């Protein structure tokens, strides 16, 4: 039988289209339990490749013949070996090109909405890592918010849309992934904004992103309004776009809220987080559509693959917005936090410009889930 090669883009389609898939993950048990390809209708079998060196006969009965089987490993090599063994045993299987490394890097741009006068809002879903970036397009100009490090993808997308990138924002100093923001700005001549309170240690020039900053994209009315909303970090800033969308950064997610400890100051910032979620956001229109910088679980994806929900609905449904007692809230977001993201301290150093790892090292740092939330 034949061995097929699938790209991360093809697997992402299966996730978004809610298709069935059987994944044979041949990484270590620890790696699998920590982080895997998530899909609504995916089934899994985890057997490390080194337990299959003598043959795959033992696992054949566990592999379905009525649905597609994808073999996955860390980088690709082991999945090719196992896929070939399965093929020799008469099974038709595929392997994931580039393994979990390419899964972690894959970005799918999805249109969230058409704005007035031909404007568009795109969400770039980094499906393997749970990172969300945004591009607002209007009349030949673009603004990018929370870009991940694959700068070419954003620059090429802007070229394809025939727009000039004018403004690049980071809602905060990220700790779970490496920002592409200042590099995009450097290459395109755009202005790069960072909240000054998060930027006290950065070693590059930036424009201060302050509460009330107002930027127009194109000649029309599409505007981007900054709203200071500390709590995940002391500088965390949200954006209201075109009076319709609320980009919450890592403060508020669909099914969870931001954690205040990744810069090491949970006790200090929990009050800010409370103030942002229970006062500042409450003063906003409930019809705003929340667009966060992350998702944590695949259930947070809408049917079209976007991650977006009305603010008013989140006030009703998101547990983190419904903890009346302040002491209980404090304990929820400071005690029993999930493990911190892989290499988060190093990633912060990279985002401050203090260290400059090569591409392989950056990939290595970003392996694993983002873990920016408290549920």
């Amino acid at each position, binding site marked *: 039988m034949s061995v097929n090669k699938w790209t991360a883009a093809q697997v992402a389609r299966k996730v978004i289209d809610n298709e069935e898939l059987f994944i044979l993950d041949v990484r*270590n*048990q*620890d*790696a699998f339990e920590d982080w895997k390809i998530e899909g609504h209708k995916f089934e899994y079998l985890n057997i*490390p*490749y*080194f*337990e299959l*060196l003598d043959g795959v006969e033992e696992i054949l009965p566990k592999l379905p013949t009525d649905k597609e089987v994808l073999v996955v*490993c*860390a*980088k690709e*090599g*082991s999945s090719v*070996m196992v896929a070939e063994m399965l093929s020799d045993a008469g099974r038709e299987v595929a392997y994931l090109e580039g393994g979990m490394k390419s899964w972690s890097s894959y970005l799918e741009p999805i249109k969230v909405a058409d704005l007035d006068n031909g404007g568009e809002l795109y969400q770039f879903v980094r499906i393997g890592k749970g990172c969300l970036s945004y591009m607002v397009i209007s009349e030949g100009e673009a603004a990018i918010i929370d870009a991940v490090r694959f700068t070419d993808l954003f620059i090429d997308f802007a070229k394809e849309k025939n727009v000039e990138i004018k403004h690049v924002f980071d809602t905060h100093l990220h700790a779970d992934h490496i920002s592409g923001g200042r590099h995009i700005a450097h290459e395109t001549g755009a202005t790069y904004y960072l909240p000054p309170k998060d930027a006290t240690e950065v070693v590059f020039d930036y424009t201060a992103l302050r509460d009330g900053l107002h930027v127009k994209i194109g000649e029309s009315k599409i505007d981007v309004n900054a709203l200071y909303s500390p709590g995940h970090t002391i500088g965390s800033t949200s954006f209201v776009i075109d009076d319709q969308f609320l980009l919450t950064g890592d403060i508020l997610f669909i099914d969870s809220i931001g954690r205040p400890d990744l810069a090491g100051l949970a006790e200090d910032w929990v009050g800010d987080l409370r103030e942002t979620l229970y006062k500042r956001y409450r003063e906003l229109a409930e019809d705003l559509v929340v667009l966060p910088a992350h998702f944590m679980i695949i259930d947070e994806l809408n049917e079209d693959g976007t991650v977006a929900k009305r603010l008013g609905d989140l006030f009703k449904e998101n547990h983190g917005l419904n903890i009346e007692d302040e002491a209980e809230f404090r304990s929820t977001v400071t005690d029993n936090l999930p493990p911190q993201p892989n290499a988060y301290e190093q990633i912060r150093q990279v985002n401050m410009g203090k260290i400059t790892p090569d591409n392989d090292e950056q990939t*290595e740092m970003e392996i694993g889930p983002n873990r920016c939330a408290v549920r």
Partner: protein
Amino acid sequence: MNITKTLDAKGLACPMPIVKTKKAMDMIQSGEILEVMATDKGALSDITAWVKSGGHTLLEQKTEDDVLYFYIQKA
């Protein structure tokens, strides 16, 4: 440490370090020691887990100049 056999798996990508380690282990006797050198970073967790699953003993593991060294005593 009395090393019976040395395997140079430097420069090889996953899964080859483990495939070769397994073959080399088949050639030594119970109680003898295999030294493995590898540069693939994934080998660190994979060889450690493979050794454990096979009931062998990882006597020592060290990293020098980006080369991973494993000393495995056969079960």
